[in-house]
């Protein structure tokens, strides 16, 4: 991801030096964008190959469903029913063709279409991730700013140790500690699970508090540490010093000169974390029994429901590719140096 951004900066540099006038800016920009989108599409295609191969070659879904004691006749019958007696290439092509038209096949567990099974759960998980992201971004920014402005102070050290501790803990550990503190052993303020919950996230927002808090605590350390590092670099840069020497007030030096230049790492790290959240929800949703794609994936793995596993794995990986594509485009758009480089 950062590789492609770096390539984007490097490649146009040669364009610029050779014939800057000859190439209209828009064309170079369009070419970069098309190349980047093409790369994303190739990655998506390779991902579909990997998902299919992993679920196809590593084992026999028919045997996995029926168990070790299944008779050969039943196995053969199920293979025909699932289309497993066709060649791998034909199976892949028909699966991919279905995916491209929005048909993810039939769930082995519910016998219904996969898209109907996961559609509502995608919405639930999207809400969970979106609410978490809205909280993570400003909290991380404030922590990073406080830390970077008072580098090596007592506040900074305490924050650093706290971030290091939280970053080390697996999500389910954070979640269970939160449940212990707020909804069972110590206090009983919040519901610990969303188990009785059948509506949509906005009918009962209280059940969202602990899952969101867990995700936020898992992600904030990463974002805050990277933002702190890039802010420190910017705050110690020549142009911020220059601004200070010119007599620009400190708040203005920070707000107008420093923050803008820390935006690029912020975009990149938030993109990575958003993509991580798409999968990070697996453990957190399972802990709180939140009806999203995470619990759906765990259930599908438990039931060996191959079509659902394929659909969810493809979806989660696609989120990563798309989010990174958007982040790279935003990076080029907000960076004057890279922007003129592309031109």
């Amino acid at each position, binding site marked *: 991801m950062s590789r492609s951004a770096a390539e984007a900066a490097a490649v146009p540099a040669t364009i610029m030096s050779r014939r800057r006038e000859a190439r209209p800016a828009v064309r170079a920009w369009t070419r970069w964008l098309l190349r980047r989108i093409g790369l994303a599409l*190739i990655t998506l295609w*390779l991902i579909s190959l990997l998902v299919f191969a992993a679920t196809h070659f590593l084992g026999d879904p028919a045997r996995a469903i029926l168990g070790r004691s299944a008779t050969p006749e039943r196995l053969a019958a199920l293979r025909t029913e699932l289309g497993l007696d066709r060649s791998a290439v034909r199976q892949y092509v028909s699966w991919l063709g279905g995916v491209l038209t929005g048909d993810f096949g039939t769930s082995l567990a519910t016998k219904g279409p996969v898209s109907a099974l996961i559609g509502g759960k995608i919405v639930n998980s999207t809400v969970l991730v979106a609410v978490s992201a809205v909280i993570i971004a400003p909290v991380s920014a404030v922590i990073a700013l406080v830390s970077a402005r008072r580098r090596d102070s007592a506040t900074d050290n305490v924050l650093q140790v706290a971030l290091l501790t939280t970053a080390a803990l697996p*999500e389910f550990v954070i979640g269970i500690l939160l449940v*212990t503190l707020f909804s069972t052993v110590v206090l009983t303020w919040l519901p610990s699970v969303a188990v009785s919950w059948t509506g949509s996230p906005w009918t009962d927002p209280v059940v969202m508090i602990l899952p969101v808090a867990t995700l936020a605590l898992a992600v904030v350390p990463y974002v805050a540490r990277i933002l702190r590092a890039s802010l420190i670099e910017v705050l110690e840069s020549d142009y911020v010093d220059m601004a200070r020497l010119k007599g620009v007030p400190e708040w203005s030096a920070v707000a107008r000169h420093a923050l803008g230049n820390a935006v690029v790492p912020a975009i990149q790290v938030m993109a990575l974390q958003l993509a991580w959240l*798409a999968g990070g929800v*697996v453990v957190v949703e399972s802990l709180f029994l939140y009806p999203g794609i995470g619990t759906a*994936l765990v259930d599908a793995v438990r039931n060996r429901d191959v079509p659902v596993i394929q659909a969810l794995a493809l979806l989660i990986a696609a989120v990563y*590719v798309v989010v990174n594509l958007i982040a790279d485009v935003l990076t080029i758009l907000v960076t004057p140096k890279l922007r003129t480089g592309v031109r």
Partner: protein
Amino acid sequence: MAVFEVPRKATAGIAAAPAARRPRLRGALASGRTWVGGALTTLVTGVAFLGPFLAPHGENDIVGAPYSDSAPATLLGTDYLGQDVWSRLLAGGTWVVVTAVLATLLGMVLGVAAGLAAGYARGWADEVIMRVCDVILAFPQIVLVLVLLSVAGPERWLVVVVVGVSHAPRVARLTRGMTTGLATREFVQSAETLGESRTRILLRELLPNMSAPLLAELGLRLTYSVGLVASIGFLGFASDPSAADWGLMINENRLALAVQPWAILAPVLAIAVLALGTNLIADGISRAAAGADHTEGASS
């Protein structure tokens, strides 16, 4: 400690190889955090390996009523079947620790090999290796692990392999970055001029100069491995559902958090302390490697 020796032979007199790393690693040892991390890691690892011999009850012995916090002859009460939580805590760490360590080593070896090869060969080999890495990186680690475990089941060797594979592209990216940086340095070029073999250049010239960042990465990967392996158990996937395992214990007893909190909190705390310990060590090494140890030296 031969690994940390500066490759002297080819570079003498032509160009000094990067400064010796010994002082840097010593810098890591000078940091208070590294020591705290080492102590925590040793404590949990000790429990994991010695625990099975010290457990007062067998891991599957029924010693009282289920979810009792005051059953006789138990320290932390009983779990969902009436088994002794303390005994299962002592017996259940070996699997997490051994799997996490093996998976981390596998991931490091795969990742370093791929990263060295890609970064030094460049060209199409680089393109192919890094494209494969990009594809694997698109899957969050826990998702990749679950998908790969889904077909063959949670066999122990498979957990090691899939967790290792999920680490490899992340390690490969780091290694590749460092390799491309070092490959144009004078001491590597002089080794090439002297006609040293590729393998020798990779292993004796390039690898030793990345030892500190790679050690820090090893510590970080170990932290994530602990989390991943424990998460697999927590999600209820286990090759032997009756065996004591910290991750699985949490899964088994999770509904009784309000009734018998120790059945869950004991393994949770063990995993937390282990992950924290390895992360503190990783942080100590990476600070020392980055030359930031002077700030640590002042405080410790």
